[in-house]
């Protein structure tokens, strides 16, 4: 290219430059870019949400577990200390006699504290009371966890031990 012809005017050059129009961005590029923000939320968002609460959840789980264990022990010890202990019950069973009835009066006396303990354990007063009643009424089977409906069941027949 050896031409030294500079006779082209600015206007003519502008006309030529105007003819150079880039293609429209493809729909594929648009779709990829439009989805990019979704991927960012899907990847960075959930990972951030999971990563941050984890220490709190661990501490909370540990605390809840300890509290539950203490309460279970407390309730268990309380029940075992009732007059209806396992040893006398077993002795009566071996003797083929009817097991003595639960000392309902004594349990009923402790019912408020048992109900409170059960409430703390299950976290729902709708189930704390039935759970305590279950101790008093052998025919009543209370729910073991929130979300289940209270149920009644036929009383279990006491089978004599061989």
């Amino acid at each position, binding site marked *: *290219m050896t031409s030294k012809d500079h006779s082209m005017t600015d206007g003519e*050059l502008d006309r030529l*430059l105007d*003819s150079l*129009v*880039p293609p429209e961005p493809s729909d594929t*590029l648009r779709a990829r870019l*439009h989805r990019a923000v979704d991927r960012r939320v899907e990847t960075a968002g959930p990972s951030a949400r999971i990563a941050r609460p984890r220490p709190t959840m661990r501490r909370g789980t540990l605390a809840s577990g300890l509290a539950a264990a203490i309460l279970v022990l407390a309730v268990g010890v309380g029940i075992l200390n009732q007059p209806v202990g396992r040893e006398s019950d077993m002795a009566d069973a071996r003797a083929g006699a009817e097991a003595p009835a639960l000392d309902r009066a004594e349990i009923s006396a402790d019912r408020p504290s048992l109900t409170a303990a059960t409430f703390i354990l299950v976290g729902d007063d709708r189930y704390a009371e039935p759970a305590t009643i279950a101790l008093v009424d052998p025919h009543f089977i209370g729910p073991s966890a929130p979300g289940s409906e209270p149920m009644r069941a036929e009383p279990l027949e006491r089978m004599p031990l061989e």
Partner: protein
Amino acid sequence: MSSPVPASGLASRKTSASGWTARGAPAVADEELIPLAAAGDRAAWIALVERYIGGITGHAWYMLGDQSEAEDVAQETFVRFLGKISSWELGGAAVLRTWLYRVTINLCIDRHRKRLPEPVAELPEVPDEASARAEEGLDRRRFVREALSALPERQRTAIALIYYQGFTNREAAELMDVSIEAVESLLARARRALKTALSPLRDDLLRT
């Protein structure tokens, strides 16, 4: 220096389905859209993409002369922006439009340098008049594009930013990290080189 209006550029711009940039509706400033997009608002993100995708892709096309590569650069530019969007400093020194174009320019330079040796001030070989006429359907765009591609990198960048993207000389100087005088010089030399390259075809090119 925010950009409350769609980015300039010759590429036609689609109207966003999000409504953020619907024609006839008041444009929402970038500073309002960025925090929404950072929070995962898809409509805000699409509005930002639609506002700049034409200009960014177009600029990359002028710089690289290849649509596929231009789209790769545009995607990389927006992905980088998305990576920074959560920490984007609103009202800070970085204005989105400027930032996007600066990244695009750098990515184009990287690609061009990897792809080709640095072009010297050698202009494309222009066919003689007879062969040009013999070539069926003289493609004006092709010659203009070849002449533009043959420009030194900085001259081409100046032409693309100022002529095609509508940046002022001062904005182009900021983007290219040179003085305004240097930009004016680059622009003048680029136009002179283009005239030289295209003048032999002037009659044919301007006939249609």
